[in-house]
């Protein structure tokens, strides 16, 4: 510490003695701040520093402020001498006085007029006073002419702007004028300009007026001549000029009407049969593709949904401006794709379409009748007349028709039925209840029933009246019920049902919702009753023939291959329930079961879905045909039992009967009652059942070929077929079938690749448009928004300031400490010096005294 002030003193000394340039050039004084990277084009304030200089500056400053404060620390008052140059000895007294005077002036002046420019001074431009020029400007501006359309005259522009041109012009003008008016003042020049432009304006106005007058005159002339011309061209029209006017209007109206009327557009050309076929094929292909899509099910649908379009500007915050669910307006199958909201429109369209579809066939069979019975029934004629017109009258009459019909006696009814189609009325009231429908259809042969239904449909077409839609929707339910009743009659009237299928199909196409609801209700009711029986007994009887028919109709009306369908899925569940819960007690049950199996195969044949109950049941049925039921290599699944009183149901009583057997289809009515009189018949029936079963097995085996556990699914069946079934006693056809199935099963691929998870699709990066941020200051951290940046900047500044202040405080304390030390050392040195002095004086005293003494002694 002792060294430091000395050194400083030295530095101060150096600084004081040397000029600033000298110091800067002295390499020992300069400290260069080394830069890590040289950046072109950047200037740095701090590349060179003069530590000595800055330090001494800082020390001086402290000496002036801090030290003084320190010195006057405990002192309360002080005098401040503000006299100018009082202690400055270098200054001359006169100069001092001058300065003091100027300071006085300044104080009085204050700072009021700091920005006042000198008023006396005039600003000029080309020697002209600017203030004057401003005045002129205003004048020119006010003279702006609208007619000029914004174009300024060349002179004007020249006078305002381009100085050069003006200069030149001036020189020209000077020469022209002959030099006497050498310097036309700017004011004059502009006045001249104004005059000129005003004149021009007036002239233009005059011209305009003149031309207008001329035009008017010309018009009048033309009118007088026009009369002559028209007279020449059409003398009659001219004569009745005023009368003609309304006629002309009519004509105009016609013209306008024609103009607004749709222009004849080229109609679609007649299609060749090939084209029609092609279109039909395309339509079917489209429908087929649709079916396949539905078959794969919701899984794909969901995927499709999730892969919604994502905008590049999407922030992935889940915000959607407006949902995708908004239906887009599009055409689908030639119809507007508007859902429930537009049901009316859609319905109408559909109905019309449907109507057209039916009318074709109906008309064809309607027409042939018309010829024959138009004359014979006068009352019908009236009906026909009213058909197009009022609905009410028609309905009243229709009311009567079934009523009278039901009242007819049995014989009459028979007679009527015999009287063939001729007797059928043309209009029918839509049945309000099931009994209405029954009344309507009863007593007619199947064909007539169809015609009645078709006509009912046509008469009550939804497009004809408001309530018709509802009526026809109900009709589907009634018809379904009627079909059920037909099926449950004994013997079942299956051929009638067969004829009604097109009607059902047509109605279903018209009202898919109502049809599906009716079908669902039928299924649920039956399933419910079966469930109730199951809960009580644990097993149930096989569904009746009507249910079987319903199931078949379901398959005809609705697509069976859909992954999930509101009707076919429950229907298949119903089949499954029946196949698992209904024990086989008789040959009728076997037949019912086989029908159900056939239906199950039909249901899954397109989609190739796996139905375990089907295989179980077929296995069980075959098990019924096995004679020796001990030690099987397979196990049957309930409802079948390994052993039991009915487990020999299909075992042939006499093996010989197989020789007289020939393949024929089983009757559907056998599900209800089977009349087999002889043992031979029974055996034949058994063989037919086994044949059906084997046929189904063959189909199943080809359906499920692709399944992973194909071999395990069919393994019990293979065991049964190869080891237990008495195939030797069966006819040759069956033996062939047997061989085929076995070959198919044994020829299947048993080995499979081991399971692994599906490979995850790599999730693609989201590709967004880059966010561009303007980078203004490189190399510094910055926030995103302006506020953040500002905050960052202030933070940084604050930190810097804080550090600086801290450093300054440290330096201050250091400085003070040094000063204190100096003080102390100074005091010590002083004391030492004084002590030394004292000692010295004492020593001299002593010396003097001794010398005196010595001298005394020597004297002695």
């Amino acid at each position: 510490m002792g060294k430091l002030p000395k050194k400083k003193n030295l530095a101060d000394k150096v600084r004081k003695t040397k000029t600033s340039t000298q110091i800067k050039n002295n390499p020992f004084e300069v400290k260069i701040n080394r830069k890590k990277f040289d950046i072109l084009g950047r200037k740095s304030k701090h590349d060179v520093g003069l530590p000595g200089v800055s330090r001494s500056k800082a020390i001086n400053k402290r000496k002036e402020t801090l030290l003084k404060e320190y010195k006057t620390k405990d002192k309360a008052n002080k005098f401040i001498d503000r006299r100018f140059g009082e202690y400055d000895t270098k200054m001359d007294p006169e100069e001092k006085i001058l300065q003091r005077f100027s300071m006085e002036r300044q104080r009085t002046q204050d700072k009021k007029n700091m920005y006042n420019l000198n008023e006396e001074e005039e600003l000029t431009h080309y020697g002209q006073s600017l203030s004057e020029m401003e005045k002129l400007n205003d004048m020119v501006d006010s003279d702006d002419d609208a007619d000029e359309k914004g174009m300024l005259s060349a002179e004007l522009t020249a006078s305002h702007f381009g100085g050069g041109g003006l200069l030149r012009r001036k020189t020209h003008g000077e020469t022209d004028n002959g030099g006497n008016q050498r310097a036309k003042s700017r004011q004059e020049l502009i006045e001249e300009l104004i005059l000129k432009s005003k004149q021009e304006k007036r002239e233009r106005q005059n011209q305009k007026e003149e031309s207008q007058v001329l035009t008017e005159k010309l018009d009048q002339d033309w009118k007088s001549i026009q009369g002559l011309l028209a007279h020449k061209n059409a003398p009659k029209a001219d004569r009745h000029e005023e009368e003609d006017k309304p006629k002309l209007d009519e004509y105009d109206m016609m013209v306008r009407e024609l103009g607004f009327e749709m222009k004849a557009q080229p109609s679609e050309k007649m299609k060749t049969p090939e084209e029609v076929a092609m279109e039909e094929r395309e339509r079917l292909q489209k429908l087929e593709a649709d079916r396949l899509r539905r078959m794969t099910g919701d899984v794909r649908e969901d995927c499709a949904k999730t892969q919604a379009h994502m905008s590049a500007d999407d922030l992935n915050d889940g915000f959607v401006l407006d949902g995708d669910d908004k239906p887009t307006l599009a055409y689908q199958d030639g119809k507007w794709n508007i859902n429930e909201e537009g049901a009316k429109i859609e319905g109408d369209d559909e109905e019309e379409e449907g109507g057209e579809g039916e009318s074709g066939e109906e008309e064809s069979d309607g027409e042939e009748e018309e010829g024959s019975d138009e004359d014979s029934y006068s009352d019908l004629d009236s009906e026909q007349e009213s058909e197009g017109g009022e609905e009410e009258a028609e309905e009243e009459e229709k009311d009567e028709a079934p009523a009278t019909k039901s009242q007819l006696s049995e014989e009459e009814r028979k007679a009527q039925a015999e009287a063939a189609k001729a007797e059928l009325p043309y209009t029918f009231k839509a049945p309000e209840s099931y009994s209405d429908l029954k009344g309507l259809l009863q007593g007619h042969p199947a064909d007539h029933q169809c015609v009645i239904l078709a006509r009912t449909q046509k008469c009550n077409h939804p497009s004809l009246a408001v309530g018709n839609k509802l009526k026809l929707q109900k009709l589907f339910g009634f018809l379904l019920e009627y079909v059920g009743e037909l099926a449950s009659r004994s013997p079942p009237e299956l051929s009638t049902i067969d004829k009604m299928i097109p009607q059902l199909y047509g109605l279903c196409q018209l009202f898919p919702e109502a049809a599906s609801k009716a079908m669902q209700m039928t299924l649920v009711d039956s399933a419910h009753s079966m469930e109730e029986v199951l809960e009580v007994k644990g097993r149930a009887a096989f569904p009746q023939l009507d249910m079987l028919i319903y199931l078949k109709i379901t398959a005809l009306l609705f697509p069976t291959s859909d992954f999930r369908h509101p009707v076919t899925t429950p229907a298949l569940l119903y089949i499954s329930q029946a196949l698992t819960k209904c024990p086989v007690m008789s040959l009728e049950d076997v037949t019912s079961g086989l029908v159900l199996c056939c239906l199950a195969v039909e249901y899954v044949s397109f989609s190739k879905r796996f139905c375990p109950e089907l295989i179980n049941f077929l296995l069980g049925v075959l098990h019924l045909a096995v004679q020796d039921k001990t030690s099987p290599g397979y196990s049957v699944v309930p409802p079948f039992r390994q052993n039991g009183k009915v487990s020999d149901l299909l075992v042939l009583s006499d093996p010989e009967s197989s020789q007289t057997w020939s393949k024929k289809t089983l009757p559907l009515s056998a599900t209800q009652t089977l009349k087999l009189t002889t043992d031979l018949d029974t055996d034949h029936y058994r063989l037919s059942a086994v044949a059906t079963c084997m046929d189904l097995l063959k189909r199943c085996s080809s359906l499920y070929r692709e399944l992973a556990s194909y071999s395990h699914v069919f393994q019990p069946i293979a065991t049964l077929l190869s080891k237990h079934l008495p195939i030797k006693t069966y006819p040759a056809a069956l033996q062939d079938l047997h061989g085929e199935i076995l070959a198919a099963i044994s020829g299947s691929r048993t080995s499979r690749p081991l399971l692994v998870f599906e490979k995850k699709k790599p999730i693609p990066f989201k590709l967004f448009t880059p966010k561009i941020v303007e980078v203004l200051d490189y190399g510094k951290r910055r926030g995103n928004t302006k506020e953040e940046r500002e905050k960052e900047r202030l933070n940084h500044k604050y930190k810097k300031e804080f550090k600086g202040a801290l450093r300054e405080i440290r330096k201050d304390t250091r400085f003070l400490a040094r000063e204190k030390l100096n003080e102390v050392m100074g005091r010590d040195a002083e004391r030492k010096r004084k002590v030394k002095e004292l000692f010295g004086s004492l020593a001299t005293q002593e010396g003097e005294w001794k010398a005196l003494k010595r001298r005394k002694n020597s004297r002695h």
Partner: protein
Amino acid sequence: MATSKRCNVSSENLTVNDVKTPKIDINSKVDLIIQSKKHANDVFDVLEYLQSEKEKNVVCAINGCTKLFSTLLERGDMYVGQLPKEELLIGGDRSADEKYCMFMRHRYNGCLELLLEHISHESYQIKESALCALMQFAAMEGKFPLQDMDWSEHYSFPRELIQAVVERLLSQEEDMALLISRFQEYLDMEDVRYYVMSSVRANVGRVMDKTKGAVMPIYQNNVFALLSNINMPSQESELTNYLVKQEAKHEDWKAAKLKEHKRAFERLWLGFLKYKLPSSMYKKVLVILHDSILPNISNPTLMIDFLTAAYDVGGAISLLALNGLFVLIHQHNLDYPDFYKKLYSLLEPSVFHVKYRARFFHLANLFLSSTHLPVYLVAAFAKRLSRLALTAPPAALLMVLPFICNLIRRHPACRVLIHRPSAADEVCDDPYLMEEEDPSQCHALESSLWELQTLQKHYHPDVAKAAMAINKPLSQQEDDISELLELSTYELMERDLKHKQSKTVPLEFDPATQLLQGSGGVGVLGLNFSLE
């Protein structure tokens, strides 16, 4: 009071009967008898009515008898102690009062016999009234004992009467289930229950010894009906409802101690189960075993023999025995060797079709919930279940698929069953041996669950979706199968129907013209069946 006299009276009364309705007649006679000893002989008429053909009369007579003898018992007009023979009564040198008491006691005994016979009457109403009357008498006898004993030493309870009633109830020819359920009202009384239990035990032992242990379905059904109607109290403090209140030393009475009750109950069941039972009875017993028998037995481990025997029977009985075994293993520290092996062999195709499916899978889920099971075992279970799933109905599939997935979740080492990346392209036959009984030898761990892959093509959309789960790594969270256990096909169907489709119903686009026309593919039905 000779028999001849009785006849006279009855013949006389018959004429009166024509005028009066039997009910009024009986009631008036009963009142007369009660009022004075003079009319004592009218009791014969009342008893006559008891044997009447008409149901109404019998019921009235029973009511009358009840009233009559209850009053007499209450009054003490009944001979107490050893009863001398009726023939000796005339000659004996007893006082008139004493004779009257003896006479009435004899009539009472006769009435009891008649009532007991009526318990096996064909009319239920008579049965019921007879039973009620008998129990009423039992209550009265308990209060006013007919035995001549020192009642400070003994507890008065009409044991003989109860025993006789029980004997009648446990008929060997007739199903008495209905009457027994009526009897349950009395079984709620602690003392009745106690004595009924001991008398049933004696009865079972006697009857079964007589038939040398052969199966007697009706008798055993009756016994079971009676046994299953016994509701044991769970705490000593619940023993409050008594038919007969004992004045002295009530606390020491055996019927008032829960421990004694339990012991009697246990001996009763063990005695019943000792003999061979029809298989339906086995099922019934096993169904109630775990919740109404085992907790009320003082030493449940005694049931081990029965349960292990039942577990070895196979089929549904084994499934049911599981529940009882589980209680023993879980709460009574039973160590059952090869338990899992046995459980494994229980897995058969029928497991998905039986009534007790929910119960079985609930238990199987419990047994397999331990994470300390060896991997091979769990893999064997998973593989076997999935193999069996190939024959299961959709409702069962919806339950068993999550079940299998849960197994794999619990035992991550089993994940190779659905994910074996080391041999991704390898093709192999299924090494799993279905016939192997021992889960450790069946090579399940080397196999894959191809069956689930097959079920992905199942016709029911929910099943297919559930099977799809194995295509991706399984989630950590286990599926809750408790709600799926009871799922039936009908419920599934209803669920499908509730499944609302927002879109329109898709329709078949091939126009249908005939009933047997093929849909989707070939008309299989049309090929095999004709419209006849």
